[in-house]
C-alpha cells in the first residue's frame, strides 16, 4: 500500500479547499499540504458561480448591516457569532483576492465595483463580469501554484476517512489512473468537497456535486446539520437547469408572468425582484399553481426580462447570461425574455462545525458548501457563498495548520491496514462482484425524482414520509448494483457508483430532517405547518448516522445581538 504523508490533507480543490491550502501554507513553511480532488481544481463547481461575492466594502455599508441582512435572510437560524466573524473578515478576503490578481470589475475611480443582490440592503456584491466564481477559482488556483509545499493529487477520489484512536488521521483515496487505493496520512484532514445538488433531478449543480464530503463525515460519526434547508434558486433555464444569475435581477431585470405582469408585487412589493431566493422561488411556484405561468416542453416557467437594460449593459455586466441563453434555449435576452423556473442550487446544511471549521471528530475539519458553520441558517443570501468559502476556508486552513503543528504523526501501519481493507471492500463490492441487476443510472434517476417529489419548494408530512420510504428502498436496490466496467484505468463507472452511495446517504438525512421539522422557516416550507415556530424549532437539526438510517437531534442557535423577530421585507 502506497502511503503519502503530509501534515494536512485537504480534500476538494474548489474555492474553500484552495483558500484553506494557501492559508495553511502561510502559517508555516515547514508544513506540507496535500490537496486531493476528484477533478482538477479549476473544474470544481466554484467555477459555475456567477453573480459575485458579498462584503461590506463601500462607504455606505458596514459589517453590522451585512450581518443583519444575513441573519434576517437566514430566518434567524444562522449562528450570530459565526455571522459576526464572517462579515468582519469578508472585506479583507475580497481585497486579498485583489492582491492575488483577481480581475474584479472596477468603479471609474479604480476601486473594486459592487452590485446589488437579493436580500442585501446596499450594493455589496463584488463581481468579475458574471463569471465571478470562475475568476475567483482561477485566482486561487494560480496563487496555490506559488507554494511548493502545496502538493496536488488531482483525480483522486476519497472513499473513506481513516480514524485511529478517535482521531481522523488520514484518508483512503482511489487514484483514478489505476483505481488502486492510496493511503494519505495526516495530522489534520479538511473536507471542502462542496454540495449535493445532484440528488435532485433539476439542479444548477455540476455532475460532480454528489455530497461526497458530507457522506464521508456522516459515516465517521459526525452529524450533518440543517440538511432540510435546500436552496431553490428562482431562475434556472428549463431543461438543463443552467443558472441565470441573480445579478440579472440585481442589474434591474424583471420577473414576469403569463399576463405580462411583475407578479412579485403580490408577494414582496418592497423588494420585488431583489427579494431573497426562498421567497421568490415560492412566489414562482404559486404563480404556476394559479395558472399564471407559461408551459413548455420542460414544464412550467415564468419570464426573466432584461430587455429594458439594453444591449450595452447586458454585454458589459451580464455577458454570460446572454451567451448561455442564446446557446441553450436559443433566446437572445436583448430581444426576448428568458424562460426560467426555480431550480435546486445550494445546500445550506452540511457537516456540523464550529466557527473555525473544526468538527466534533478530532483532526477533522470542514469548510465551504460541504460544511455548516452556520452563517446561512434556513436561507442563504446570494453572494454570501463565495465569501463563505473564502472566510471559512482561510479560518479552517489556519486552525488546522496551528493544530497540526502540535500533533505527532500517527504511525502509518494501522492507517495502511485500514486503507487495504478499503481496497478489499471496493474489489468485493464492485470490481469483482458477480451478479447484480441494478444500474447506477436507474437508481440515481429514481433518487432524483424521489427528492423532487418529496422535498420540493413546498413539502408535506405525506410527501416527506413517502420520500423517507423511497430513499430506504433505493438503498436496498443499491445492494443489487452491477457495473459494466471492471477496468482499472479511469473506471468512471466505479466512481459514479461510489458517488451514488454518497448521494443515497445524504438524501436520507435531507428527507429525515425535513420530516421532523414541523414548521416553515426560510427555504423549508411545509404546507401543513405554514408558520415559523420558534418555541419548538429555533434550533439546528443534527442528523446522526445509525444502522437504521439517520437519527435526528437538535442543537441551539447562537444568538448574540439580533433577537429573533418576524422576518419582514
Amino acid at each position, binding site marked *: 500500500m502506497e502511503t503519502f504523508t503530509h501534515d494536512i490533507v485537504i480534500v476538494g480543490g474548489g474555492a474553500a479547499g484552495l483558500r484553506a491550502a494557501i492559508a495553511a501554507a502561510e502559517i508555516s513553511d515547514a508544513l506540507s499540504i496535500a490537496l486531493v480532488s476528484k477533478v482538477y481544481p479549476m473544474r*470544481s463547481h466554484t467555477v459555475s458561480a456567477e453573480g459575485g461575492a458579498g462584503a461590506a466594502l463601500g462607504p455606505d455599508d458596514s459589517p453590522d448591516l451585512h450581518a443583519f441582512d444575513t441573519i434576517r435572510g437566514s430566518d434567524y437560524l444562522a449562528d450570530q457569532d459565526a455571522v459576526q466573524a464572517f462579515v468582519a473578515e469578508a472585506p479583507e478576503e475580497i481585497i486579498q483576492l485583489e*492582491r492575488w490578481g483577481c480581475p474584479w470589475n472596477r468603479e471609474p475611480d479604480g*476601486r473594486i465595483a459592487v452590485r446589488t443582490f437579493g436580500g442585501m440592503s446596499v450594493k455589496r456584491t463584488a463581481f468579475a463580469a458574471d463569471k465571478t466564481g470562475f475568476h475567483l477559482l482561477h485566482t486561487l488556483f494560480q496563487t496555490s501554484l506559488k507554494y511548493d509545499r502545496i502538493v496536488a493529487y488531482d483525480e483522486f477520489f476519497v472513499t473513506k476517512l481513516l480514524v485511529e484512536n478517535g482521531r481522523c488521521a488520514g484518508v483512503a483515496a482511489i487514484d483514478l489512473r489505476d483505481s488502486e487505493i492510496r493511503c494519505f496520512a495526516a495530522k489534520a484532514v479538511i473536507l471542502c468537497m462542496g454540495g449535493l445538488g445532484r440528488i435532485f433531478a433539476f439542479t444548477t449543480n*455540476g455532475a460532480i456535486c454528489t455530497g461526497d464530503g458530507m457522506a464521508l463525515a456522516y459515516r465517521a460519526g459526525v452529524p450533518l446539520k440543517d440538511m432540510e434547508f435546500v436552496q431553490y434558486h428562482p431562475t434556472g433555464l428549463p431543461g438543463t437547469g443552467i443558472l441565470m444569475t441573480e445579478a440579472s435581477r440585481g442589474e434591474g431585470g424583471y420577473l414576469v408572468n403569463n399576463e405580462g405582469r411583475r407578479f412579485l408585487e403580490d408577494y414582496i412589493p418592497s423588494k420585488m425582484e431583489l427579494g431573497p431566493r426562498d421567497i421568490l422561488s415560492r412566489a414562482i411556484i404559486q404563480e404556476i399553481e394559479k395558472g399564471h405561468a407559461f408551459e413548455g416542453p420542460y414544464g412550467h416557467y415564468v419570464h426573466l426580462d432584461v430587455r429594458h437594460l439594453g444591449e450595452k449593459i447586458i454585454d458589459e455586466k451580464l455577458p454570460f447570461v446572454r451567451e448561455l441563453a442564446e446557446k441553450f434555449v436559443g433566446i437572445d435576452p436583448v430581444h426576448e425574455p428568458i424562460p426560467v423556473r426555480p431550480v435546486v442550487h445550494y445546500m445550506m446544511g452540511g457537516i456540523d462545525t464550529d466557527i473555525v471549521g473544526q468538527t466534533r471528530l478530532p483532526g477533522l475539519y470542514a469548510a465551504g458548501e460541504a460544511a455548516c458553520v452556520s452563517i446561512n441558517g434556513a436561507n442563504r443570501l446570494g453572494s454570501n457563498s463565495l465569501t463563505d468559502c473564502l472566510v471559512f476556508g482561510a479560518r479552517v486552513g489556519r486552525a488546522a495548520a496551528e493544530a497540526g503543528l502540535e500533533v505527532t504523526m500517527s504511525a502509518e501501519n494501522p492507517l495502511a491496514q485500514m486503507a487495504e481493507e478499503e481496497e478489499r471492500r471496493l474489489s468485493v463490492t464492485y470490481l469483482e462482484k458477480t451478479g447484480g441487476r441494478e444500474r447506477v443510472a436507474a437508481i440515481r434517476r429514481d433518487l432524483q425524482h424521489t427528492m423532487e417529489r418529496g422535498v420540493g419548494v413546498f413539502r408535506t408530512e405525506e410527501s416527506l414520509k413517502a420520500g423517507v420510504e423511497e430513499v430506504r428502498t433505493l438503498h436496498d436496490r443499491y445492494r443489487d448494483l452491477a457495473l459494466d466496467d471492471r477496468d482499472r484505468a479511469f*473506471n468512471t463507472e466505479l466512481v459514479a457508483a461510489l458517488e451514488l452511495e454518497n448521494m443515497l446517504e445524504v438524501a436520507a438525512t435531507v428527507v429525515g430532517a425535513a420530516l421532523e421539522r414541523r414548521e416553515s422557516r426560510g427555504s423549508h416550507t411545509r404546507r401543513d405547518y405554514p408558520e415559523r415556530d420558534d418555541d419548538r424549532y429555533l434550533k439546528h437539526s443534527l442528523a446522526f448516522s445509525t444502522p437504521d438510517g439517520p437519527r435526528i437531534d437538535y442543537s441551539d442557535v447562537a444568538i448574540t445581538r439580533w433577537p429573533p423577530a418576524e422576518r419582514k421585507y
Partner: protein
Amino acid sequence: MSSELWPELLPEAPEAIELWEEGPPREPGAKPRTGPPAPGQIKLTLQIRRYDRERREEAWWEEHSVNMEPTDRLLDALHEVKWYHDGTLALRRSCAHGVCGSDAMLINGRNALACKVLVKDVAPRVTVEPIRGLPVLKDLIVDMEPFFAGYRRILPYLINEEQPPDRERRQAPEERERYDDTTKCILCAACTTSCPIFWGDGEYIGPAAIVNAHRFIFDSRDEGARERLDILSDRTGVFRCRTTFNCTEACPRGIKVTKAIQEVKRAIMFERL
C-alpha cells in the same frame, strides 16, 4: 472556416466500424434504451473512438444510436451512451455549460466542448475522438499533465513584490479591459491540441500557456512581464507559432488566441529591446 488548416483533422469517416463484438458484461434490467425516437426527439448516431489498453492494444471505433431532444448537448448524448448502453465509456465532465473546461473533444474533426455542441447541430451522425497531441489514457480521457506543465512554466500568478496598500490596488476600468480577453481561458486545451506545431513538436509550449502569460503581462498590477517574456522567447516559446489560427478557431470561449500570441511576440521584439 478553411479546411486546409485542418488537413489531418478531417473526419476519418471510419469505413468499417469495428464493434465490440460481444459487448461488455450486462445483467438483466440493464438494457440500453432503444426504439424509435419519441415525438420531438431525434436519433443521433455517435461514432466514438475508444481506447482501453486493458482490453485491446489498438484504439477502435464504436457506434451507438441514441434518441435525444434536439436541444440536448452532445455531452448528454455521451452520457446516454455511458449510462444506458455501455458503462465502460470514459470521459471527463463537470459543469456541463462551457466554463469548467473538462470536456474538450475532437468532434467531427474539430476541437470543441461536448457541452457546448447541441445535438441538433450535429445530428444525424457525429464522430467523437479524444483531443490530439496528448497521450490517450482511456477513451476520451487524455493525459493533461504535459499541458499543465506548459501552463506552470509561464508563472501563472500575479507577481508584485511591493508592499500592498491596506485597501485594494486601484485599477482603472480601461486597464482592466486591457487583459480582459485572456482572463477567459478555462484551460480546456482545445487550442493547444488543435495546433499543428504542438502535435509535431514535443517542445512547443502551446497557445494556452501563452494566453495565460498574456493575461499577466498586460495586467497593470503585475511586475513579472520581463521574466515571462524571457521564458517565452526561448526555442520552445512564441516564435514557434506559425499563425495558422487553429487555436483561435478552436477556443470555446472566443478568446482571440492568435492575436494574444502576436501581442506577446511584439512585446518581446520591441518593448524589451
